[in-house]
């Protein structure tokens, strides 16, 4: 399941009860934008105790080499140390975690060298020091068909020899070299190095001991996750043989202290305040939300439904925090007439009522109206115009602008400013009122629409398969894998990502200028230059109107009164290694 699907699940989570907090977001019922929990670490946080997490969703995979959900990362980053990671409040630049220094990228962008810290140990039963070979194996196994990591192909697919591993021809990834125990050298066939180096924050770079994991990975479907070892402050409770008995799918995750973890002695910045985390899966979201607010020692593990947001935002402000997360958009298929004409696309963009969409999503508390694609917090956001955007006329009025829309249609050859032509197809998801709003908006322009309301999985399949010939997908959205413009824009808008199946580029935008600009931006190592370049890419994409940016989400997170919750901003979820009891 991918981040797009994860995003859609989040969308659904909001949509089901969205209307209930619309008023709350508009400042009624005593709610305003101030006074909420900051989610930042504070001085003198208390040590010890048990933190209770409740979530409706289960992890997508307990295996750090497969984990990809926002929910999952909460457990993964408490138990594993990737090469780099983000401190809770700082999403701009990752810091060395398992690595001892920032990665060194060669001038041609084809080689990345990373140094691994000494003194980091695996939890029992392996209980030995981590070496660079363990990182090599971790990244390599991501390409094994038995593991099938969802993002290694995207960011590390250009490693020399990666394809041979993913085809099952070899288990040795030639592009990863370990000249000594502390050094990992990554050789790419393209200048993707600067971007790949940033992707080393992902959990596929957390070390895996080959001699232990080999037998699990050799099966048709690896069960290493159910027998994993940890390098982080916590581990899933396991028996003497290493079986992770603390994880029961769909029921619970028990995290206990990792006896092999030696904290700051191995360069780990995580304070790991609580002694234990008891995570209950499958909780009814509304009931669980109330339990968290009324109860003791609890935090929400996934999306909080609107009634709970309203309750917390009006009566328990100190118990709710908000964190930005990704974007939403409507895609217009540039490979199909009439949306191969930019003016027709701009007409649709102009008529979409983003105010109504915001209200349908839950009002101002749950996000901001988008004017481009890079969301707040992602480098390049300000370069792309910040909250106001760059002033494209077709996105100037959040409530929609029928005059501007008619003008673009006239420019496209429709003299009376109304579209006349063949029927178009549009796909939305059930339970999402936003789809209906988009449908009505598009119909206003004269479009004859064949609208299909599908389950989210079916919607994803239809929109990601070009042969389905869907003109408009109303429920697009993207979560970044890490805080970088590449992770936000390359997948959904590069012509290189168009594929017959599972294509993330729903608009099928294949603009040589944008593709080239993206390639150039991906090669930049300087953070400021990189942010500027991706900001420019963002504006170029916005100007094509291949998709209509509608919303930048703010994720609500709730905690009990006696919890000092700390938010991992890059993941928009509680950071279990930093949160504590009061």
């Amino acid at each position, binding site marked *: 399941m991918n981040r797009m699907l994860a995003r859609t699940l989040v969308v659904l989570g909001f949509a089901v009860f969205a209307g209930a907090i619309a008023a709350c977001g508009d400042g009624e019922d005593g709610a305003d934008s101030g006074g909420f929990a900051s989610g930042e670490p504070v001085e003198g946080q208390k040590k010890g105790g048990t933190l209770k997490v409740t979530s409706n969703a289960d992890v997508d995979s307990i295996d750090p080499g497969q984990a990809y959900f926002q929910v999952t990362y909460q457990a993964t980053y408490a138990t594993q140390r990737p090469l780099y990671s983000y401190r809770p409040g700082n999403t701009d630049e990752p810091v060395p975690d398992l690595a001892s220094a920032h990665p060194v990228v060669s001038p041609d962008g084809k080689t990345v060298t990373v140094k691994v810290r000494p003194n980091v140990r695996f939890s029992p039963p392996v209980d030995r020091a981590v070496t660079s070979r363990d990182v090599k194996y971790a990244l390599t196994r991501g390409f094994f*068909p038995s593991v099938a990591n969802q993002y290694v192909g995207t960011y590390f697919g250009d490693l020399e020899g990666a394809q041979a591993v*993913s085809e099952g021809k070899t288990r040795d990834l030639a592009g990863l070299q370990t000249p000594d125990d502390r050094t990992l050298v990554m050789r790419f066939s393209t200048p993707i190095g600067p971007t790949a180096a940033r992707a080393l924050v992902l959990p596929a770079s957390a070390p895996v001991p080959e001699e232990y994991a080999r037998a699990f990975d050799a099966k048709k479907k690896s069960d290493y996750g159910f027998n994993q070892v940890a390098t982080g402050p916590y581990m899933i409770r396991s028996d003497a043989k290493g079986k992770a008995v603390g994880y029961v*799918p*769909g029921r619970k995750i028990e995290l206990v202290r990792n006896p092999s973890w030696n904290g700051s002695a191995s360069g780990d910045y995580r304070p790991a305040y609580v002694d234990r985390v008891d995570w209950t899966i499958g909780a009814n979201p509304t009931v*669980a939300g109330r339990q968290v607010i*009324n109860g003791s020692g609890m935090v929400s593990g996934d999306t909080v439904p609107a009634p709970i947001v309203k309750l917390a935002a009006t009566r328990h402000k100190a118990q709710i925090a908000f964190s930005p997360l990704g974007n939403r958009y409507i895609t217009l298929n540039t490979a199909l007439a009439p949306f191969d004409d930019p003016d027709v696309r701009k007409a649709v963009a102009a008529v979409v009522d983003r105010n109504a969409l915001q209200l349908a999503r839950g009002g101002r508390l749950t996000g901001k109206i988008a004017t481009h694609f890079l969301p707040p917090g992602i480098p390049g956001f300000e370069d792309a115009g910040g909250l106001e955007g760059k002033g494209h006329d077709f996105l100037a009025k959040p409530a929609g602008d029928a005059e501007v829309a008619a003008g673009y249609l006239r420019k496209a050859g429709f003299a009376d400013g109304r579209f006349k032509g063949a029927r178009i197809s549009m796909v939305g998801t059930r339970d999402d009122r936003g789809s209906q709003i988009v449908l009505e908006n598009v119909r206003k322009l004269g479009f004859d629409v064949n609208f299909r309301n599908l389950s989210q999985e079916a919607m994803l*399949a239809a929109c990601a398969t070009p042969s389905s010939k869907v003109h408009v997908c109303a429920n697009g959205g993207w979560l970044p894998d890490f805080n970088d413009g590449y992770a936000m824009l390359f997948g959904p808008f590069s012509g290189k990502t168009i594929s017959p199946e*599972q294509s993330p580029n729903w608009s099928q935008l294949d603009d040589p200028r944008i593709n080239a600009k993206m390639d150039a931006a991906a090669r930049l190592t300087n953070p400021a230059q990189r942010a500027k370049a991706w900001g420019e890419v963002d504006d170029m994409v916005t100007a094509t109107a291949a998709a209509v940016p509608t919303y930048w989400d703010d994720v609500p997170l709730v905690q009990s009164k006696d919890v000092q919750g700390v938010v991992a901003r890059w993941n928009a979820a509680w950071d279990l290694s930093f949160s504590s009891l009061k």
Partner: protein
Amino acid sequence: MAGYVARRLLWVVALLLAVSAITFLIFYTLPSADPAAIRAGRQPTPELLAQIRQNLGLDEPVYVQYWRYMKGVVLHFDLGFSYASDAPVRDQILDRLPATISLTAGAVVVWLALALPVGLISALRRRRWQDRLAMGAALVAISAPVYWLGLVALYLFSKDLGRFPIFEGANTYRPLTDDPAAWAASLLMPWFVLAASFAAFYARLLRANLLEVMSEDYIRTARAKGVPERRVVLGHGLRPAITPLVTILGLDIGILLGGAILVESVFNVPGIGRLAYDAIRQADLPMIQGTVLFGAFFIVVANLLVDLAYAWVDPRVRTA
């Protein structure tokens, strides 16, 4: 009788085969996500997709996949692996089964304990205030959606959220083997919520049956012979009136063992119903198939037991 039992057992096998085949066909016919594409991520290479399809056996024709699946089920009781969690389906179902059995068994006891006296009193006090009160309450209980009733019960009576904190609330389920007292405490409210509509239905049914039976000639004869009223009611009236309830009880138990989705969801009782619900949401075919087969198994077995009981009681049924 042996021939009858053999015939019915063959039907059970045929029915389970049909259920499994239909589930397979539905999954492949209706629009759904491709499990290989879901696993492969957002920018998979065709090679990776092909490898995953091969690993999951999705590259084979549907009938070959079905044959392989059924072979695993019959020969090794192997229900495959979940696409979502990679865990063995059999282990997950067996892990959830005790919770479902606990929920069902307790609810059955509660609803019978409520329905039998209420139905009896209603029939004996027909059109009096006891009858009207009981049947009015029964109507409310039947009409109230279980999901809503569960939430109301939680917000009224749970120790952590309720106005009158009496019972343990949601997310408190403990297995019987861990702590019997905590097990019972965690299930008290789910038992009552699940039992409410069943108790109401059974009470109404018993009342109607009993009213019909009590107007039979043999009841009048018994009374005319001077048989004490208590014996007339309990000995001559209740037994025939209760027989249809036994039939329905068997089927209801079978259905509930297949999972009480709503109650399990509201109270987070980790049973088979919620497992099935999650599997459907995630297009997790092996888990859907496993839970459907288990549910169907319980229903047909319950049906079989009821039929056998009837055949044993009434020989005419065997040749019907």
